[in-house]
């Protein structure tokens, strides 16, 4: 029924290309992401000069730094999304399956948490516990599971109304077994789609923290901190801003496209919105 989207294929291909480059370039490049080279400060992008994307204020190769930034961003995106998916799926499946009072309590909690201003909280967390890299994952993962919990709960409710679940319940199958064997497998497609859509949000979140100086430690770079560095130098050397910004935008764009396509294919309840 639904149109296949060539856009999603292009997005997937582009994403694969970026991932491959992020893995290979730092390994193959003669340059290091961290060591300053004082003789080569602000050499602009050029093929002949050996620095395809130029160098930054400390003479470090921007290509290698951007690729490291992609690594960090994608890693944070995937790891934190996994955390949020695990929490969200457990929470939502339990609420939807248990129903009644427990459902009420769990979902009311989600409602309350929706009103919590998250970015300030993560900033407080970051400041309070120091800029620990692991902390970034946990903080972001811990605050971005709400949507998934809601979607999973709704879907679980729908699944539990199916007759085979009632039959299994009547046969006395244990709750945990039920959730594991009947509910979760039916959720996989939906969760995969929404997890893909969660990744760009998480990447943006990490980039925002790094932009504010609360993310990764220098000399390590994430795309967010590279954009922040670039913004400081943009008057004289705009490429330092534009190149990492372009990579960040491309990754987000591709993940959004891919997630949209997955959701349209896997979530029957979702009406196609926006541009198809």
């Amino acid at each position, binding site marked *: 029924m639904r149109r296949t989207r060539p856009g999603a294929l292009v997005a997937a291909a582009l994403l694969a290309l970026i991932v491959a480059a992020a893995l290979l370039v730092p390994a193959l490049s003669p340059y290091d992401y961290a060591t300053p080279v004082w003789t080569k400060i602000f050499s602009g992008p050029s093929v002949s000069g050996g620095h395809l994307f130029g160098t930054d204020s400390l003479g470090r190769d921007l290509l290698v730094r951007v690729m490291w930034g992609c690594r960090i961003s994608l890693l944070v995106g995937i790891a934190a999304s996994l955390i949020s998916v695990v929490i969200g799926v457990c929470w939502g499946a339990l609420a939807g399956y248990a129903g009644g009072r427990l459902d009420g309590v769990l979902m009311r909690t989600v409602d*309350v948490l*929706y*009103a*919590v*201003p*998250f*970015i*300030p*909280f993560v*900033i*407080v*967390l970051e*400041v*309070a*516990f120091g800029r620990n890299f692991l902390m970034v994952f946990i903080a972001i993962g811990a605050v971005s599971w709400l949507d998934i919990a809601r979607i999973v709960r709704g879907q679980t409710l729908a699944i539990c109304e199916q007759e085979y679940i009632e039959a299994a319940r009547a046969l006395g199958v244990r709750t945990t077994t039920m959730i594991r064997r009947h509910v979760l497998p039916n959720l996989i497609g939906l969760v995969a789609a929404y997890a893909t859509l969660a990744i*760009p949000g998480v990447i*943006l979140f990490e*980039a*925002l923290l790094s*932009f*504010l100086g609360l993310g990764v430690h220098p000399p390590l770079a994430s795309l*967010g901190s590279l*954009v*922040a560095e*670039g*913004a400081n130098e*943009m*008057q004289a050397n*705009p490429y330092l*801003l*534009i190149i990492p*910004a372009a990579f*960040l*935008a491309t990754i*987000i*764009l591709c993940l*959004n*496209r891919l997630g949209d396509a997955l959701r349209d294919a896997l979530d029957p309840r979702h*009406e*196609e*919105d*926006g*541009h198809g």
Partner: protein
Amino acid sequence: MLRFLLQRLLTAIPTLLVIATLAFVLLHLAPGGPFDSDKVLVPQIQHAIESRYHLDEPLWRQYLRYLGELARGDFGPSFQYRNTSVNELIAQGLPVDAAIGSAALLLALLLGGATGLVAATRPGSWRDQLPMGLAVLGISIPVFVTAPLLILVFAMRLHWLPSGDWVAGSWRHLLLPALALALPYTAYIARIVRAAAIEALGQPYIRTARAKGLPTHVIVLRHALRPTLMPLVSFLGPALAGVLTGSIVVEQVFGLPGIGRLFVTGALNRDYTVVTGVTVLYGALIIGFNLLVDLCYAWLDPRVRART
């Protein structure tokens, strides 16, 4: 309706309590305090300062004192800015954010709404494809990228607008920050309005209205406008919350004296009262916006009204 309002206001209290407690606990759990600095203070002075801000009391007493002050709407004195209360700091910063935020939302509603409606009248044509392609791009580029780019182009290269600073009441100083903040929401709103308008115009009751021989403008204004507004209204809740956090970035990039910057510097300097105060304020604003959204919903849709 009155009961609904009261009920919502009552549920807001525990939510705010959770937010206030979380902020308090997190800050006080963290190692280090606001007056630990590199230079070692004379113990007497350290003591004097700590007792002035009640930091020498047991934590539970500090917590109760803090809640008591909150209940009276008092966020306490700032640790960083001597002799200034957090209420005063917020009162200075809030107008900046209110100006940028409302300008940004207005821009996003006008631009996004118009684009979405035009796209919806001819789905599939270039008037649809082009702006919607741009909208996907707009959603994918974060504020902290667009803001420096806008400065680069319009302030540094073209010299049309100032690159920062804040002059109250000056639209030239307002325009770039508001635009940077508005762009992602413009894109979202365009997509939402387009989808909602296409869906609304495809409803069977629109056909019924056409079959009555009503002119197009009556059909659009009387029959299709409200269902188009519904998804937009439900988006405005999260959007307003997003504008709050987005303004943190915009203030940072443009160097504006709003509460976002107050918050970030407060967090970096362990200014407990500023951080908890702004966090609670953000929470209260989000709750307020969501309530406003629900009221709009009820106002627009009789079925929701019946349930509330």
